[in-house]
């Protein structure tokens, strides 16, 4: 209290915005999850039937108000055609169907929790979905040596916001089940800001000159999972897609 009293009002307002680590940074450690339908479609959408008739209501798409700033994703005309074709063929093409790594930012708003393990030099984010993981380097190691699904993440603090610059992506991941996609020119800048002790505000600015006419932004809150003894569990989905991907090569077909 004495310390707070000695600080100017603006600094006090910052300090009361949630827990801190030993080195004075906002403490992002914890298990987090979104409460949004962004993984079905980043843009606002009404509920709709799913692509698999036997799944009935289980497979239907829940409605969502959208997370894209300004609502529109600024596709180039030919890229918009690709997105539409992606959606039409989503059972074959969506990397999530095959349990592939989700990429960034999709990993954030998959309907699974993720855990942040924060240290001064590195911030590990471990995602329950497909045991995806990424390490945010707080010291820039230079350009990404190879392209990858989750990209190379380099972070720094802007005041109380963790800003993560993500490059070095391959062209394989999607942004959602609606066919929104990118190429290997993707560049994502994420912003994580604690909002009280148990929520984060998340923003991601998405840039890909091959697909979009300008950078665009999504934003959503992320909530702390607060169940007693909550932990990430395994969602190693490779096993669940073997019949889909390799069933045709069985000696005796499963059905």
């Amino acid at each position: 209290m004495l310390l707070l009293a000695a600080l100017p009002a603006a600094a006090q307002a910052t300090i009361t915005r949630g827990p801190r680590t030993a080195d004075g940074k906002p403490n992002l450690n914890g298990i987090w999850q979104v409460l949004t339908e962004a993984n079905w479609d980043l843009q606002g959408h009404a509920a709709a039937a799913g692509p698999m008739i036997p799944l009935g209501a289980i497979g239907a798409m829940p409605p969502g108000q959208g997370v894209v700033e300004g609502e529109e994703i600024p596709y180039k005309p030919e890229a918009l055609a690709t997105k539409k074709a992606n959606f039409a063929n989503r059972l074959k093409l969506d990397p999530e169907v095959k349990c592939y790594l989700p990429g960034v930012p999709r990993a954030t708003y998959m309907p699974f929790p993720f855990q942040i393990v924060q240290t001064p030099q590195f911030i590990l984010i471990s995602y329950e979905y497909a045991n995806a993981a990424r390490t945010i380097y707080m010291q820039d190691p230079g350009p990404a040596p190879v392209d990858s699904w989750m990209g190379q993440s380099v972070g720094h603090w802007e005041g109380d916001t963790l800003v993560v610059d993500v490059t070095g992506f391959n062209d394989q991941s999607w942004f959602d089940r609606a066919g929104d996609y990118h190429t290997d020119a993707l560049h994502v800048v994420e912003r994580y800001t604690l909002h009280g002790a148990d929520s984060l505000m998340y923003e991601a600015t998405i840039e890909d000159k091959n697909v979009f006419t300008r950078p665009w932004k999504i934003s959503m809150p992320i909530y702390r999972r607060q169940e007693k003894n909550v932990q990430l569990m395994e969602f190693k989905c490779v096993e669940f897609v073997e019949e889909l991907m390799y069933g045709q090569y069985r000696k005796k077909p499963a059905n």
Partner: protein
Amino acid sequence: MGGYLEKRFCIAMLIGAAGLAVTGWAAPPPKPANYTPPRTADGQPDIQGVWNNATLTPLERPAAMASKAFLTPAEAAAYEKQALEQNNRDRRGTDATSDLAGAYNQAWFDRGSKVVPSLRTSLIIDPADGRIPYSEEGQKRMAAAAEYARAHPTDGPEDLALADRCILWATAGPPMLPGPYNSNYQIFQAPGYVAIAIEMIHEVRIIPLDRRPHLPGSVRQWLGDSRGHWEGNTLVVETSNFTDKSHFRGATANMRLTERFTRTDANTLTYEFTVEDPATFAKPWTASIPMAKSAGPIYEYACHEGNYAVPGILGGARKQEAAAK
């Protein structure tokens, strides 16, 4: 801490007693003086960093060294030279089939170039013969599994190795063993947690340190369910809740694993693990593996996303069957 040191002392005594009975064994080098690791901000012994556990020392003592617990320095040098030559995948095959089977050249591999500094002939330190102490029941079950595998090598994906299926790398653990390449691990510590990012195949183990109970016994996971605590400067991690499909070295889902991580000098993380599974092993067994500090970084090993092995192996088998008809 005291109990841990006592136990280690007992193990060392047992091995010493066994070693005296054979000729030509060399004494292990003395343990390094007590090293005090730095502390994290929340007071944990700091074991963070990228670590590599590649070594030429095998898990089990080779039959040819049955009575030899330790190599002499000269024997170790000869062994290393021979192993490096034998492992060299730039030696091409003598016929088309063996040449193709060696399609990965040496650049892919990193099996290390040294045996463990103790010069022990196996990573297993207990029992004293350096071998996994299978029980009769365990041997029978493994023989039956091997017989089934011989009769059904490629019926479907379930018949292939977990690593070929990109479900679980055989050395990723737990317990973590040296593999033929990418034996890299990055450890992170935050208040209440130790996290281990395993390069193969992008596994992450997040180990809570708050003595919470394990998951219910009905919940089984490929990597089990780990709980950790500190005993002095040693991180002790206990893992249960394995699946009946992970079968580490033939173990059942009831395997219990205890791992001990101790930073024994600035550049060495000494990793010991003890495996217990009465249905498979006649007694618990323990291995010790030094992990060396590495500059890193670790990379994304997206195994499943590039898996041509499963369709290749199964598809090839179907083609062969069709051709034989």
